[in-house]
């Protein structure tokens, strides 16, 4: 059996976050999950219990720093540490929309949510990781974080910012034992994708497939990952690169 790790996942009530939580629960890891929707979160919590893992489940909006403090502190109080943080939570905002048509309030909300949440979460888990000189912080990005496509709106802009956030942090944290990693999961069959591409006519990966592909990045401590950016499709086909 693998060493018991404490893995924290934001936005774990649906999509990739949920798939990761359930997949890792099957590996009997200790999980800390959060989401804004209590009912959906409870369902995931129950399923994790059924799979034999321990879990801290907190209703929390991680773009709110008070919620971040509560979620992380309760996890540290319960499990004593956090080995891996997966910054998964994000919002898409309005469906396909030209930036010129984008509602101001929605733009502000998406940018604020998607940038502040990985910043608050990363900053808050760092002290424990730095003291132990180990830890992985993995953020879920997107192809639209490096290529601007029409009508992906504030979501795309926010993922560009996430890529910048990760790059700065990776540089500041080199040689500390804490690794900053980006993963682009590719297009998945999720509610968010239905909003982004309502008329999708091509096949999509399932979140469960992507969750399995990410296992090595989440759990393997032998790889030097800091500052790396992975595409999940490559992980499915070839395993992680370390080049």
């Amino acid at each position, binding site marked *: 059996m693998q060493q018991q790790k404490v893995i924290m996942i934001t936005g774990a009530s649906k999509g990739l976050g949920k798939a990761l939580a359930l997949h890792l629960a099957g590996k009997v890891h200790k999980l800390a999950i959060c989401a804004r929707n209590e009912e959906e979160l409870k369902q995931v919590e129950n399923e994790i219990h059924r799979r034999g893992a321990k879990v*801290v489940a*907190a209703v929390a909006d991680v773009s709110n*720093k*008070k919620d971040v*403090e*509560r979620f992380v*502190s*309760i996890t*540290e*109080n*319960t499990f*004593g540490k956090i080995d891996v943080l997966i910054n998964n939570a994000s919002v898409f905002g309005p469906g396909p929309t030209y930036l010129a048509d984008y509602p101001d309030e929605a733009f502000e909300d998406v940018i604020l949510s998607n940038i502040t949440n990985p910043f608050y979460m990363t900053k808050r888990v*760092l*002290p*424990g990781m*730095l*003291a132990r000189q180990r830890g992985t912080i993995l953020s879920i990005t997107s192809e639209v974080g490096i290529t601007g496509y029409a009508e992906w709106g504030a979501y795309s802009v926010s993922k560009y910012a996430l890529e910048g956030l990760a790059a700065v942090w990776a540089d500041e944290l080199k040689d500390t034992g804490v690794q900053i990693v980006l993963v682009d999961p590719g297009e998945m069959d999720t509610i968010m994708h239905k909003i982004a591409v309502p008329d999708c006519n091509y096949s999509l990966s399932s979140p469960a497939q992507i969750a399995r592909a990410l296992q090595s990045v989440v759990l393997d401590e032998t790889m030097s990952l800091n500052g790396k950016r992975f595409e999940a499709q490559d992980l499915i086909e070839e395993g992680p690169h370390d080049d």
Partner: protein
Amino acid sequence: MMINSTIHSFKLPPYLHATTPAEVTRNQRSDVRLMTLHGDSGAWDHHTFEDIIDLLQPNDLLILNTSRTIPSSLRTVDGAEVRLSRKIDEQVWEVLILEKRLNESTTLYFDDGISASIVGPGMAPELTLIEFSIGGEGLMHFFYNHGQPITYEYIDSPWQLSHYQTVYSHQPGSVEMNSAGRAFSHKMLKQLKDKGVQIAYVCLHTGLSYYENNRWPDPLRHFEWFSVGADTVEHIYKTKKGGHRVVAVGTTVVRALESAYDPKAGLQPQEGLTNVYIKKDTTLKVVDGLITGFHEPEASHLDMLCAFVQEKKLIEAYQAAINEQYLWHEFGDLNLIWKRTYA
């Protein structure tokens, strides 16, 4: 109990109460002043806090307290303030109830349908044991959803909980901030490491430092949970063997380390409760230097400082700090004290 001593009799001018975090009024947490005090000579010098990078030497060992401040000031539905002091178990806490009328009631009522029964006296006459209607994670959620940082009367703004954390804290449990380490930034810690200064950790969850109405904790009845790990013990032995210095960041670190010292076995990994009272006749076994804030005349912390420097020299230095307008309390300036050499 308070020993009758001149160090407890100096007057602190009200304008020296620090009311605001340094990063709010200036730029960085580290933008505070540092007074160094040499235990042997009693001489002092004035610095900025960032000078600590020059004042410490490669292979000196800086020891930080990892305890993180929890929101410890609660309000009952009637508006009475209840301050957490120490966790007893998953549901029972030792607390300070500020409104006397509530002492006559046996149940306290809070928001979200949470209540607490008074189940007995605390370790000090001012404290009370209460049992909450819930425990564990649920009680922690309640603290974080409804609690606030404890603020004393010299604080005139409701600062956020994040202002009451050191940048390196990660074990929730202190009811007040371990304020000596507040001025360290991640950048400064990196600069110290790059210089070769070593860093190790202990954990001590602070209790209340003041019971209001001029009531102060009796150190012998002031129990706090602490933990000193094997890695830190090993680090300290290595530092001492190499002729380098162990510098505690905060009186909490001194208390933890000296509590883990066994007269027969030496420093040992240990965790549990401590009520060790360090005062002028205490011979410090582990710590060579201390970074600490400036303490109020009534605080027992001053007794601990007298273990580092003679009381007469300490009062002279404190008078100099007052003359130089150093700021007091958790958002204030800092003092690096090097232990006097024992005969």
